[in-house]
C-alpha cells in the first residue's frame, strides 16, 4: 500500500471513459467522462450509491459491456496499452490472467452444474500450460489460502453444497489463482452476512498484498473502503465528484455528497453505552440518470446548492492534500462550486 509513489508508472490509466446505454427510455450515460490512475499494488475504492455507474466502470475495463451499452469514448490504458475497444479474442487473453473480477453475488457467479474444482482449474487451463495434476495441486493450494477447510475433498463438491461466504471464497480463489495484476471486486461482500463481510475483505486484502496485485474495490460501503483503500474515488451519476487519498477523503471530505456518505456510516463509538449518535441520511434519491438536470447532478439533494450549481456543471479541480503519515503531497480533487471548507 505504501508502494504507490508519485513517479511510478500507473498500471491502469482510465481517461475520459464514457460508457453509454441506449435504452427504450432514453440514453443512459452510466459512465460519463471518468479519469483515474491506479498504481501497481494500489487499492482503490470506487464509491457511490447504487445506480451510480460504479459497476459499469469495472465492466468497461473488463470489456464486458453488452448491447445496448457501449464504450462511447475515452481510453483504458492497461500497462501502457489501450485496451478499450480490443476485440473479444484479444480481451480474452487479458481477462482472468491479467485482470480478474469478483462479482457481487456468489450464489449466481458459480455454474451450478460443475464442481468447484472444475471451475477453479478452468482458469488455469485457459491461461497456463499446466498439467491436470499441477492444476489440481494449485487449486488445492489456492482453496487452502482462501481458508476453505479440507480443500482436497471440497474440490469435488458442487456450489450448492457451500454457504454464501464459502462460495465467495471460492470465487476469490478463482479470481486470484492466475495471479492477475489487477483485481476488480464488484460489491464483493454486499450479498453476504455482515459478520462475514469483514473476514472476506481482510482475506481479499491479504491476497492482493501478497501478490502485489492492484485492486479496484467497487462498493457503496464507505466504511469498508476506509479500512482497505489507499485512494478513494467517489462517483455520482456517472461522474467523479471527488477523489484523493483515502485518509484525506475520510478525514476532510470536500464534496457535500462525500460528506453525506461519511455521515451515514454508523460510527463504532465503541463500548460506551452513551446516547447513540443519530445517523444522518442524504435527502432524496439518486435522480433518473436519463433526465439529469442541467448543472451539478447533486444540486437537487444538496443543502449548499446555489443558482450557479443549477446552471453550470462543476469541473473536477485539484487541491493539494497532505497524505497522513507519508507527508507527501498527493492530489485531492473535487467537483463542486461550493466545496466544504477544510476543517483544521
Amino acid at each position: 500500500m505504501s508502494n504507490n509513489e508519485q513517479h511510478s508508472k500507473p498500471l491502469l490509466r482510465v481517461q475520459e471513459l464514457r460508457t453509454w446505454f441506449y435504452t427504450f427510455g432514453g440514453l443512459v450515460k452510466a459512465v460519463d467522462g471518468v479519469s483515474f490512475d491506479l498504481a501497481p499494488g494500489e487499492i482503490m475504492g470506487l464509491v457511490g450509491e447504487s445506480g451510480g455507474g460504479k459497476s459499469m466502470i469495472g465492466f468497461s475495463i473488463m470489456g464486458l459491456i453488452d448491447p445496448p451499452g457501449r464504450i462511447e469514448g475515452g481510453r483504458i490504458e492497461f500497462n501502457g496499452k489501450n485496451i478499450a475497444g480490443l476485440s473479444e479474442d484479444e480481451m480474452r487473453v487479458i481477462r482472468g490472467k491479467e485482470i480478474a473480477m469478483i462479482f457481487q453475488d456468489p450464489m449466481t457467479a458459480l455454474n451450478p452444474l460443475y464442481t468447484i474444482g472444475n471451475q477453479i482449474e478452468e482458469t488455469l487451463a485457459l491461461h497456463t500450460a499446466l498439467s491436470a495434476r499441477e492444476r489440481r495441486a494449485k487449486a488445492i493450494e489456492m482453496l487452502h489460502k482462501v481458508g476453505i477447510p479440507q480443500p482436497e475433498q471440497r474440490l469435488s463438491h458442487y456450489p450448492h453444497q457451500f454457504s454464501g461466504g464459502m462460495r465467495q471464497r471460492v470465487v476469490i480463489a478463482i479470481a486470484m489463482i492466475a495471479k492477475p495484476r489487477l483485481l476488480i471486486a464488484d460489491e464483493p461482500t454486499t450479498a453476504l452476512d455482515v459478520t462475514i463481510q469483514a473476514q472476506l475483505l481482510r482475506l481479499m486484502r491479504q491476497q492482493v498484498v501478497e501478490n502485489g496485485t492492484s485492486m479496484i474495490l467497487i462498493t457503496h460501503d464507505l466504511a469498508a473502503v476506509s479500512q482497505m483503500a489507499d485512494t478513494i474515488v467517489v462517483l455520482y451519476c456517472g461522474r467523479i465528484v471527488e477523489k484523493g487519498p483515502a485518509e484525506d477523503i475520510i478525514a476532510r471530505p470536500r464534496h457535500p455528497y462525500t460528506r453525506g456518505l461519511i455521515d451515514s456510516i454508523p460510527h463504532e463509538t465503541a463500548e460506551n453505552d452513551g446516547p447513540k449518535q443519530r445517523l444522518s441520511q442524504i435527502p432524496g434519491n439518486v435522480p433518473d440518470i436519463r433526465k439529469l438536470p442541467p448543472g451539478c447532478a447533486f444540486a437537487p439533494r444538496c443543502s449548499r446548492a446555489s443558482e450557479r450549481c443549477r446552471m453550470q456543471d462543476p469541473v473536477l479541480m485539484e487541491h493539494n492534500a497532505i497524505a497522513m503519515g507519508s507527508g507527501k503531497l498527493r492530489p485531492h480533487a473535487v467537483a463542486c462550486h461550493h466545496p466544504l471548507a477544510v476543517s483544521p
Partner: protein
Amino acid sequence: MVSSQPIPATRARSRMQRFFASEFFHNYKRNLSAVLGSLIVLGFLVMVTIGPLIVSQNPYDVSQLDLMAAFKPPAWLAGGSSEYWLGTDGQGRDVLASIVYGSRISLIIGLVAMGGACLLGTTLGLIAGFYGGRLDAVIMRIADIQLSFPSVLTALFLMSAFGTGLDKVLIALISVGWVVYARTVRGSTLRETQKEYVQAARVSGLPNRKIILRHVLPNVLTPLIVVATIQVGTFVLIEASLSFLGVGVPVTQPSLGLLIKNGFDVLFSGLWWVSIFPGLFIMLLVFGINLLGDFLRDELNPRLK
C-alpha cells in the same frame, strides 16, 4: 441497472389515447411479427364473416354445383378457369369457397372451445386455489393425470367414445383444454390470497364468492390472455387432426381438416390443390395466432422478456 418505466402518458385524455401512447402500443408498432400476426388474424375474421357473400357459390348447396367443372386445377395452371381460383374438387366445388366456409367452422370451433375451456378451467382453478384442501387435491390430480397424456390422443379417444359431431368436438376440446387454465389460475390464486387485501376482505366478512369475483379474479386474468390466444391455434390444429381421422366434424359441416381428408384420396392422382390449399390456410391462421401469442407473452409476462 435501469428500470424501464413506461413513457409518460402525455396528457392522455381518453382511454384510447392512453393506449396509443402506451409502451405496449409502442412495442406493438415496432414489432413486425405482432403486426403481421394481427393482420393475418384480422384477415381471417373478415374472410369468415363477409367471405360467404363474396365467393361465387355455396359449396354445400348441391344445386349450385356443376359436375362438369369437377377437378379443375387452380386458375393459373393449364385447364384452370378464372371462375375457380384455387380449382375445384370431385363434385365441382370451388376450393376457395370451401375454404371460406371451412375456415368459419374451424375458427368457430377454436374460439368457442377456447371460451368453454377458459370458463371451466378458470372456475376450477379458482376453487382449487381459494378453498384448497381435498377439492384442490382432486382437481389437481385429475389435471396431472390428464397432462401426462397428449391432448390429441385424449381428444381422439373421447371422440371415439362420443362419435362425430360439432358439439362432441367442442366437448372433447374443452375436456383437454381446461387444464392449462386451472393450473395457471390456481397458482395465481394461491399467490393472490396470501396478499393483505384479500386477507383483509376475508376478515371483514365479505362472502367468499364476492372476494373471488371482485378481488381474486381480476388479478389472475392477465396470464390467461396469452394461454387463450395460443389455445385457439392449438384447438384449430387438434380439430383438424380429428376431422382428418374421420372422428371430428360431420361431412355436412366440413372444417379445414375435413377438406384435407377429402382431398387426400385424390392426392395420388396428382390432384393436389384439393387438399394442399386448405392445409395452407390452416397453417396461415395458426401462424398468425401464434405470432400474436408470442408478442403478448413477451409483453404481458415480463419475466420472460
